[in-house]
């Protein structure tokens, strides 16, 4: 899994009442995220690591880190499969480079 998930820059989005509405201009498809997925989405800036996002989710919902990590991993996988999240360039930099 990409350790630094990043929002697909080819998408337009706004947060409405705490939930993200995302438009794919290429096909005019509209995606709507629930509150948890929206929290991941807004933190997926290519700078926050998955572990940091897990920390945000765990704190928001007051759940153990293990439980939050399972949810975050699953949602990142789903969002990536839909093309909403992409691999961050930061993740492509070799360690120690």
């Amino acid at each position, binding site marked *: 899994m990409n350790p630094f998930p990043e929002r697909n820059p080819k*998408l*337009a989005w706004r947060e409405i*009442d705490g939930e993200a509405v995302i*438009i794919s201009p*290429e096909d005019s498809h509209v995606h709507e995220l629930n509150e948890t997925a929206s929290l991941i989405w807004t933190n997926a800036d290519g700078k926050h690591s998955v572990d940091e996002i897990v920390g945000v989710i765990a704190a928001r919902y007051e759940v153990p880190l293990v439980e939050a990590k399972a949810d975050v991993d699953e949602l990142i996988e789903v969002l990536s499969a839909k093309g909403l999240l992409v691999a961050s360039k930061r993740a492509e930099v070799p360690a120690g480079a």
Partner: protein
Amino acid sequence: MGPQASAQGSLRPLNISIGRVPLSLVIPGPHLREKALTRYREFTANSEAGLPVVLRTDAQSDARPVHDDPNFSYVLDDASLRLDSSGAEFHGVRHEYALDSLIRILLTMVLLPQRGFLLHAATVVREGRAYVFTGRSGAGKSTVASLSPAGTVLTDEISLLRFSEGCWQAYGTPFWGEFRAAGQNEHYPIAGIYTLVQSAEDRVESLTKKEIIRALLPCVLFFTPSVEANQDMLRLMLQFVTQVPCYRLHFRRDYGFWNVVAA
């Protein structure tokens, strides 16, 4: 009038104004110019020279939109448009219907920075205020228009909504559906927007911002692949739904819906 005078006349810009967006159409052929004069006759009054829109008879093959192009281009069947900072060019326009379509597409781009957009919606004026009824094809826009008194329908198909004079206003357009009217070049403050649902009862339901955005987005006319422009459109839609009362209208396709809409 001789051929030379006719040709000169056809090169004189036809100035129109739709939703307070002035356009100067340069139409090369007298036949198409006459058709445009007829179609936009209600929108030529008091109009001044505006954004130049030059019609070319040739087709343009390289007008496909690309993401990083700072200018806007769009291909519609055999016709196309290109918009840059100096004006717009329409290519391959052979009849007034293609001209009408390209003007609509052009307006979506010109209106955006002016806090305006086009929406698939019928608009009816009642006691000086505009009631906007939106929905996809078959939702009941034409039915609402047909159930409204003559002269009160601002449009039965495409509404032009923009923020001006301190509030959101609905403007008349020449873009009509089944009614095929010339349109009225007038504007009225918006009383509310109603997404149409056919039902066994007449009832108005309040919507959350997200619900109304979900209902409106498929009905907004927007054609650019630009992420930035789509971001601007989303921002504008959020402003709109925050500032205009938005409802879902369950209606029986008869006149009774006015009892709940204007209650």
